[in-house]
C-alpha cells in the first residue's frame, strides 16, 4: 500500500514523525486536517474564509429551476458555528459555461455586507477567468444571512431564491478510514463505515435560478470559485 501514499504528504509526514502516537490520536488529526470533497484541499486556502468545501448543482423542486450550493469553512463544530461568519472580502462566484469551451458565459456572484448576502446575476461578465469584478448594474438580489439556531431566511426576488447561513454539512464519507488506507494502516474500508463529517456544519450559500437564465437546455459546465478582494 505504500505506493498509494500520493498527494497526502501532510498526513503521511505526520504519520512518520509520530509513530508512537496511538491510532486514535492520528485519526483525530486526520479528522482535523481532512480534505474530502474539497474541504481544506490546498495550503493557501486551508482553514481560511476562502476555503470552498463543496459544490452542488441540481434540479430544483420546481423542475424549471436549477439550484447551486457552495459550502465554505467546513468542519464547524456546533459550538463554533454561531461565531462563523462570511468574509466581506471574499466573493463566491458560480460559473456557468454554456458552449463547452470551459469559459464562463454567466456568473452568479455572492458577497456579504453587514449581515446581508448580496447576489449579482446571472449575468454575462465583461471579463472572465482569474480576476473578476462585480457589475453593480447586473440583476441584484439579497437575503439576510440566517443566524445559527434560527429558522432559515429565504430571499425571493427576480424569480430566484436565496439563502446564506450555517447548515449541516451535506457531505458524507468515512474519511478517517480512507486516510488509514492511504497510510498503509488498513486493508480496506469498514462495513459499516463511519461518517467523518457527521455532526459538523458549514456556511452555505444556496441560490435557485430559472434554467432559462443560464442557457435554458442542454448540458452546461459549472464550477464555483472563492475570490478575494485585492
Amino acid at each position, binding site marked *: 500500500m505504500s505506493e498509494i501514499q500520493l498527494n497526502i504528504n501532510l498526513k503521511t509526514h505526520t504519520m512518520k514523525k509520530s509513530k508512537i502516537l496511538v491510532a486514535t490520536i492520528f485519526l483525530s488529526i486526520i479528522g482535523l486536517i481532512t480534505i*474530502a*470533497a474539497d474541504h481544506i484541499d490546498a495550503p493557501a486556502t486551508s482553514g481560511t474564509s476562502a476555503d470552498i468545501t*463543496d459544490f452542488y448543482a441540481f434540479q430544483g423542486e420546481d423542475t424549471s429551476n*436549477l439550484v447551486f450550493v457552495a459550502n465554505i469553512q467546513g468542519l464547524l463544530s456546533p459550538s463554533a458555528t454561531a461565531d462563523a461568519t462570511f468574509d466581506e472580502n471574499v466573493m463566491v462566484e458560480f460559473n456557468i459555461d454554456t458552449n463547452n469551451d*470551459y469559459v464562463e458565459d454567466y456568473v452568479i456572484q455572492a458577497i456579504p455586507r453587514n449581515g446581508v448576502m448580496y447576489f449579482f446575476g446571472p449575468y454575462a461578465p465583461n471579463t472572465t477567468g482569474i480576476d473578476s469584478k462585480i457589475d*453593480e448594474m447586473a440583476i441584484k438580489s439579497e437575503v439576510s444571512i440566517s443566524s445559527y439556531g434560527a429558522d432559515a431566511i429565504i430571499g425571493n426576488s427576480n424569480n430566484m431564491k436565496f439563502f446564506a447561513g450555517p447548515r*449541516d454539512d*451535506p457531505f458524507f464519507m468515512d474519511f478517517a478510514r480512507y486516510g488509514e488506507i492511504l497510510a498503509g494502516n488498513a486493508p480496506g474500508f469498514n462495513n459499516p463505515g463511519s461518517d467523518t463529517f457527521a455532526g459538523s456544519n458549514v456556511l452555505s450559500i444556496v441560490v435557485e435560478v430559472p434554467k432559462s437564465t443560464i442557457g435554458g*437546455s442542454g*448540458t452546461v459546465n459549472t464550477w464555483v470559485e472563492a475570490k478575494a478582494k485585492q
Partner: protein
Amino acid sequence: MNFKNIKYFTVLTLSLFLMSCSNNDDETMITVIESEFAGVYKVKDQMGRPAVNTVFVSSSSKDSFNTTIPSQQGGSFQPMFEANLKALSPAYANAGDKNALGLDAATFTGLLATDVLNVSLDGTTTFYDGTNVLTGRALADDVITVELLLIFGGEDFTENPNLSNDNVDANDKEFLTSFPYLASAW
C-alpha cells in the same frame, strides 16, 4: 429615484464639483469614486467535481491547480492526474485496463483534469444514479463511493470491493424537499 440612481447622481455631481475646482485646464481630471463592491477579486479556491483536487493533484500543485482556469487545467494537469491515478490504482497501468465508464487511465484523467461539474438542464441531475452519469450533483449522491468505484472497481465494479465503497451511503441528517434543501445546522 432609486438608491442606485442616487448613488450615480452623487458621483456625477461630485465629479462635476471636483472638475470645477480644478484650475489646471491642461489635465483631464478623472475622478473615481469607489462603489460598495468595486475592486478586483482574484481566485483563491475553486471546485467543480467533488474530491478531484484532493485525490488527483499532488501536494505541491494544489494551490496552482486552484488558481488555473478550467480551460487550461486539462493541458496543464492531465499527465499528473494520470500518474497519480496509476499510483493509486495500479491496475490502470495495465494496457487496456478501463473503468466501468469504459475509460482508460488517459481518458478518465483527461475528463477529470478539467474540473467542472457537468449539469443537465433537461432532467435528472445526479453524479451517478445507476442510469444517468455526470448530469449534476444532488445532495444525496454518494459521490465518494462512485469515485472509489471508478478508481478501484475495474470494468464492472467488482474489483477491490474493500476499496470501492466506504460504506457511508447517506448524510447524517435528512435533506429537505424544498429550498434551501440542506438540513439545518447541528
